[in-house]
């Protein structure tokens, strides 16, 4: 049952990618910006969760919630302070700003608390190993999967059933037409950043529980990989980000399992190159035609 074990590992890491990728894809869908500071919001989430567990002793679920709330506030602040005034600027200006914001968050964190890593406590959640069909499943894995599934269901509900979700879809499809409906575009964009950043914050806490070690630059690689996952699934597509994240996690795990673990990170980039060559719109991407 070796392959089943690997599949479960792949889905666990894929869940983290998927949660981060959702923020990338939602923000891209609405303002066509690749928010490169998103990986750093994920890092902040991991640290808030860490302090919740080790300093404030509030337990796993409250720590997760606090991390999500703080990250959503951070996301809205980033949008209001850095991106809002660039809404009509060139895309490259916004992209460079995003990289600037990313560096600002990373090095402000280092300035405040230093660059040394921290370790999540091993008793963050109850630790137990279950054996199912000869496969070892840890309680951490179950918590990760359960959290991810709940958050994704919640997101689907928000996007499809609530008023703000419908406004988000309307704005991402046609901002001007959305204004004609009386939709407040600024608030809708802020809500998108808030939701996307909250998901990244949750991913940060889950990452800490699963991998233990966190540090101020931890957001870079998962951030880039989640971006690849979003492109793989079709950037702008929510089901695409979920699928892309899971797929990337599984592929990486398989690459490691067959003995190429040093090539694990490269695999993600090879996927990016292949998808850009053969299916630039991604798995769920729309073939956008330029309207004349």
């Amino acid at each position, binding site marked *: 049952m070796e392959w089943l074990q690997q599949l479960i590992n792949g889905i666990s890491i894929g869940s983290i990618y998927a949660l981060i990728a959702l923020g990338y894809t939602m923000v891209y869908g609405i303002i066509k910006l690749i928010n490169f500071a998103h990986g750093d919001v994920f890092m902040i989430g991991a640290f808030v969760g860490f302090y919740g567990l080790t300093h404030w002793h509030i337990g796993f679920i409250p720590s997760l919630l606090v991390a999500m709330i703080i990250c959503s506030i951070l996301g809205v602040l980033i949008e209001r302070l850095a991106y809002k005034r660039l809404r009509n600027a060139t895309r490259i200006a916004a992209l460079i700003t995003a990289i600037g914001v990313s560096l600002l968050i990373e090095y402000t964190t280092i300035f405040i608390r230093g660059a040394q890593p921290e370790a999540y406590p091993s008793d963050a959640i109850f630790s137990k190993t279950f054996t199912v069909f000869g496969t070892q499943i840890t309680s951490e894995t179950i918590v990760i999967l359960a959290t991810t599934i709940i958050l994704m269901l919640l997101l689907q509900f928000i996007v499809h059933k609530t008023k703000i979700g*419908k406004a988000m*879809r309307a704005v991402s*499809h046609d901002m001007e*037409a959305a204004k*004609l*409906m009386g*939709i*407040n575009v600024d608030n809708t964009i802020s809500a998108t950043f808030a939701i996307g950043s909250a998901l990244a914050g949750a991913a940060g806490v889950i990452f800490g529980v699963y991998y233990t070690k966190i540090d101020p630059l931890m957001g870079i690689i998962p951030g880039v990989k989640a971006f690849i996952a979003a492109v793989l699934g079709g950037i702008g597509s929510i089901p695409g980000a979920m699928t892309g994240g899971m797929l990337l996690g599984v592929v990486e795990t398989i690459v490691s399992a067959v003995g190429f673990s040093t090539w694990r990170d490269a695999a993600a980039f090879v996927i990016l190159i292949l998808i850009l060559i053969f299916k630039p719109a991604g798995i769920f991407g729309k073939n956008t035609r330029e309207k004349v």
Partner: protein
Amino acid sequence: MLKVDNIDVFYGGNIQALKGVSLEVNEGEIVTLIGANGAGKTTLLKTLSGLLKPKKGTIEYLGKSIGGKAAQGIVKSGISQVPEGRRVFSNMSVEENLELGAYLRKDRDGIKKDLQRVYALFPRLLERSKQSAGTLSGGEQQMLAMGRAIMAKPKLLLLDEPSMGLAPIMVQTIFSIIKEINEEGTTILLVEQNAHMALSIAQRAYVIETGKVVLSGDAKELQESDEVRAAYLGGL
């Protein structure tokens, strides 16, 4: 009801699209604004809807100045627009599009009633209510865009080229529905290139050329006038 006085509107900072435009719409009327491509018709409607801000001049609606007010506030005050090219949310269902039209309303019962009213006006939309708006034909999308605007319960409805790209029979249908909406009590400002159709249902008309109102008056009289016939009615 609506009084536009001497407005200047610029596009992209330095291109002047409207030069001292003035016009008036009285309650209960159908007023049409006709003119060629690029004359400034769409710019005027965008300004009325709050998507563009006038640099000079005033816009008064129900006695209050609305020039430069944000789009949200204008929709709330009872002006809604059916934009050029329909602009339906093709990623959503017909019914979701109509619900978005009522975005600012809180009266659930009123919304339900208006949804029934829209379905009565456009039975085709009821048949396709669960279908994605992107799968509709051009004429059906025009109906959806109009239904969506009606869902905001406007006092003044702005229509931007509803006949564009539609088959003649569909144009007839759309125009008879515009008349029906007007008879039910909604004031209408209709922007059209199809001058013949527009003048036939309007009471009054304005002719706009390169950002300026060059002619205005009774729709029937304009239909007879030599200048309009030569320029917009193919000299019939």
